[in-house]
């Protein structure tokens, strides 16, 4: 498949510029919400697109990150960057715990375990007094970076979250392009082969899971700062399902996929928030259409139809793909 022949740094600049424009064209808080989900979805894509691992409980990380950041900001009067750091660190640990349990199984069983463990986390959050139960954490202060630069204004929080998001997306991209990323894809395509080459495949998949969890927690923490709210929805199955849909819609395994998916889906929800049609109803329709007609996702379909520059050895151009993760090069 054609590699997008533009240096990542250029993309960073393009991203920064577009974000700058977006600030004036679109309601900034909405842009930030979309950004948070972009990071969340990109982290999820690292897991499913590269490692080929489907997690049905990623809301546990997103929500935990949100709650942790919120709790720290409210009760300890911590600076926002430290709160985010702590949220990320804690979700890394949570990811390690959940992943260590789940990674011993594969495929559907793995997905079911993540679902169950996420439910456990949900119930713990539900019952814990620190999370405010049904009401959630409200009025989370945004604090001041390094104690000096207040994030209360739209502009300040916009700069802060945009910077962190861009850096995170860049980092995720780099991880995908790295030898580690190649190894994940190799393990996904032929695990036995990888094992025979001496790689402890389970550990690599666990590593991918943990990294994905950490970034998801960071995204959740940022969201809590942006909206100044953390609720049970953030840690519920609805969010777990939504991130799957975002990546499916945008394109599994393609870097731009989760970005496009998040922009579309979250953007749609923000625009139609007061419509009488229940959002999940539309999401359900999108889900069904995607699975049946666009399994490669929007960006995936676009990339697949580009003229192939160098046909990869394991996927003849034009072959209909049955599995979501089989035999595809990535346009990373």
């Amino acid at each position: 498949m054609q590699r997008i022949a533009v240096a990542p740094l250029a993309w960073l600049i393009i991203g920064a510029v577009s974000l700058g424009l977006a600030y004036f064209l679109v309601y900034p808080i909405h842009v930030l919400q979309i950004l948070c989900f972009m990071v969340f979805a990109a982290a999820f894509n690292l897991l499913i697109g590269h490692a080929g691992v489907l997690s049905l409980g990623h809301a546990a990380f997103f929500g935990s990150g949100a709650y942790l950041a919120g709790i720290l900001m409210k009760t300890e009067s911590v600076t926002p960057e430290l709160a985010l750091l702590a949220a990320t660190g804690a979700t890394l640990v949570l990811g390690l715990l959940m992943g260590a349990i789940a990674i011993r199984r594969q495929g559907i069983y793995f997905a079911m375990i993540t679902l169950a463990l996420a439910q456990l986390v949900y119930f713990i959050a539900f019952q814990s007094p620190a999370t405010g139960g049904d009401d959630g954490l409200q009025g989370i202060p945004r604090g001041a970076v390094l104690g000096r630069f207040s994030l209360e204004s739209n502009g300040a929080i916009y700069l802060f979250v945009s910077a962190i998001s861009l850096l995170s997306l860049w980092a995720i991209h780099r991880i995908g392009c790295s030898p580690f990323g190649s190894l994940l894809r190799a393990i996904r395509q032929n695990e036995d082969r990888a094992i025979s080459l001496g790689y402890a495949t389970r550990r690599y998949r666990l590593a991918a899971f943990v990294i994905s969890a950490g970034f998801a927690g960071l995204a959740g923490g940022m969201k809590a700062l942006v909206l100044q709210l953390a609720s049970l929805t953030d840690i519920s199955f609805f969010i777990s399902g939504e991130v799957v849909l975002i990546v499916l819609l945008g394109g599994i395994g393609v870097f731009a996929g989760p970005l496009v998916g998040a922009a579309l889906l979250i953007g749609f929800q923000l625009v139609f928030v007061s419509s009488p049609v229940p959002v999940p109803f539309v999401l359900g329709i999108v889900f069904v259409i995607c699975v049946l007609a666009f399994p490669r996702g929007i960006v995936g379909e676009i990339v697949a139809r580009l003229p192939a520059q160098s046909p990869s050895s394991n996927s003849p151009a034009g072959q209909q793909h049955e599995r979501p993760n089989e035999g595809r090069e990535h346009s990373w």
Partner: protein
Amino acid sequence: MVDLLGLPVTAVFGQLMIGLINGAFYALLALGLAVIFGLLHVINFAQGALYMLGALVAWLLLTEMGLGYWWALILSPLIVAAVGAAIERTVILPLYGRDPLYGLLLTLGVAMMIEYGVVWRYGSAGMPYGTPEALRGVVNLGFMILPLYRLWVMATSIVVCLVVWHMIERSSVGARLRAATEDPAMAQALGINVPALRTTAFAVGAGIAALAGVLAAPIYQVGPLMGQSLLITVFAVVVIGGMGSIRGAVIAGFSLGLIEGLMRLVYPEGTRMAVFLIMAVVLLTRPEKPIGRA
């Protein structure tokens, strides 16, 4: 008054009975899931939505056509089975042969469409459904007082589970269904109508869910999202019982209901978590075995 676990006996048995009733619904839904997964290798995320449809159809039959509970018990499963067959023919059929995770995602989408379609049409509050005349009142078992309707639910669910199990594991129709699962090409070559059997299997799963919905209506009332909270627990039940194993699903369903009832007496905060903890433990300690056979 005798005391058990520091509580009056009637209270203990009362909680256990509530747990068993919940277990009956777990078992019924798990049964449907196991049938569909065992025979179609599709994880039907829409099972909860079909359960809700069963209750909804019962309510509609009552309010729109004046047809009461006993009519609903027969008609609702048939109607919802037809809906299930339609779903299978249209959206599930293209997915056979692909990664089962696709089926999971698709049925999730279908579930969302059904549940929130109902929310759109009828609002998110529930609709009441009364207990049928003949089943009101209580039964005195000596050590506890049991509402007659709950006894009815228990009896019906046990009978349904036994009948379905017998049909699939022991009858010739069931044998053909199982053959179609294990080797569709061969079964088809031998003249078995595999696509029709698949549709039937899905329809049966849907019908069982709907029956559970009708049974549930007088107890839990009819709410658009009544299946949602139930479903994730039922998934855990199916996994514990062994995915695709009908006997396992049923036994696990009743057992877990009972365990939940016990938890509510001993450690109420952990009630909802119990099932998932057990599932995690079971999954980690059980050796991985091929999907399908118990």
